[in-house]
């Protein structure tokens, strides 16, 4: 077993763990954390794959940096949504069944 295999398998396990968290967690902030675990596990797997062969490949590294920034952007919006949703609904979990949107009575008015 090489060091790369260790990192790749750790990455795979992190993806699985994060996916479990994303599906099973009910508190929305926990789901956002789980999303970040999946992302970083995936990047670890990718980094290990890119380091095989002669010399590290800079392309995966660049893609991972892009991916980290994209994940941060998504996290920022998701976290903001969690807070305003909690403020409006009084709780930070989603109901099991999507509810019908309330009637947008005043959409046409001010």
């Amino acid at each position, binding site marked *: 077993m090489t060091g790369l295999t260790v990192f790749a398998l750790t990455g795979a396990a992190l993806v699985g763990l994060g996916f479990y968290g994303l599906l099973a967690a009910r508190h929305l902030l926990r789901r956002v954390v789980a999303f970040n675990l*999946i992302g970083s596990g995936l990047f670890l797997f990718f980094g290990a*794959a890119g380091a095989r062969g002669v010399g590290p490949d800079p392309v995966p590294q660049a893609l991972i940096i*892009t991916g980290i920034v994209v994940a941060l952007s998504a996290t920022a919006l998701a976290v903001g949504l969690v807070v305003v949703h909690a403020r*409006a609904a009084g709780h930070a979990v989603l109901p099991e069944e999507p509810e019908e*949107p309330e009637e*947008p009575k005043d959409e046409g008015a001010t």
Partner: protein
Amino acid sequence: MNALVAVLALPLLGALAAVALPPRAGVRAALLATALTVAATIWLLLAVARRGVQGVILGGWEPPLGIGLAADGLGAAFIAMSAAVMGGVALAARQMMAPDVVGARAAFGFWPLMLLLWAALNAVFVSRDLFNLYVGLELLSLAAVALVAIGGKEAALAAAMRYMIFALAGSLLYLAGVVLAYAAHGTLDIGLLAARDAAPSDGLALALMTAGLLAKTAIFPFHVWLPPAHAGAPAPASALLSGLVPKASFLIILRLWFEAMPDRAGFAALMLLAGLGAGAVIWGSLQAMAQARLKMIVAYSTVAQLGYLLLVFPIAGGDGAAQPWAAGAWTGAMFQVLSHALAKAAMFLSAGLYLAAVGSDRLGDLRGLARTMPMTAFAFALAAVTLMGLPPSGGFTAKYLMMTAAFAAGQWYWALVMALGGLLAAAYLYRPMAVLFARESLIAPRPVTRAAQAVPLVLAGASILLGVFSAPPFEFMQIGRPDAAEEGL
């Protein structure tokens, strides 16, 4: 300079200008960018029609090192679709998203978000690089979620939150497949991937990418986020979200299964995709029948209409790609994409006009509105003709092409699903039509200008004209198609 670069750069610059300028000037800059991008789209269409596929090697760095873009007939047709819907939405939004109607916040945010959405759509429609498609999809998803949340009410926020979770899970699954593809082949370019020998991990990569994209396209059973999100947004945003956004992730599925990894597509997997599509057609239609609000009916109809698109995979994918009927099935699905976009945008904009007129979109409150707003009711009816697949609409062309191909391929059961879907669409659209065209009216509507009513009418009319003049778009979409067959309509 090149038309392809223009359709990418103009909406981006417009969005940046809309952010930087003071509110009124920002809206004017956004409208200018909209007009210029529509013009650039026409330029691109002419270039593709005259000279074939338009490609760009970004920075002059050939793949696998750099990123290649290409507008083939399919990509250019999708770009034209977004230009048509965006143009209509921008005209409608001048009134519907004005500060005195929706407040300073939504009036500021709508324009840059609309233009960013446009740039993301066009970027996805032409990108040949799997990772670049990921970044484009993320831009698309974040802008789309923001457009749902722009409504600001509790239900809209919950819908945006649910949409966000599906979008996040979907993009990571897609990214996992991209990682496997690069790790196995050392390239992200769709054309180069197709030329490489198959690797054992390719099946998993394709499955992960497809699963992620299905969640983003809201294909049954991953559709639960779509109806509340699309119905909860302001009408111009709903038109973009329902008409255009799911088409981007669908196009990537198409490029994966038909262009990047066509030989890895097993028949069982193709049948599974179509099975999901059939489930979407039936379940979405049944749900649409049970809704009491116009926007929810229209949103569930999107779930059903997206289902048809997946029926193309077993008919024209895998070994079927070399068969004479493949071009018909494939082009039929593309007609469905285009005509649904136009019709659905028209329907949501009509719903928005009714909301503005009577302050509600409950079916009971819409009684007899065809008498006071005949143009809008006519637009809704034309769009309904397309969704039901009645001649001479674009929806009819789509279903005619796909059904004849299904019979030719010996897969008559998919034709049955399409016929059933048409009947169900007639059933769920009958209720709003019967209400609109009722003799008596309950609520005296606020006046809506003719100019505002003209926008959905033009869009719905275009979805009909797509069927009347179906030969030129049919020919156009064959430009650069892999395995393009010679036979026409």
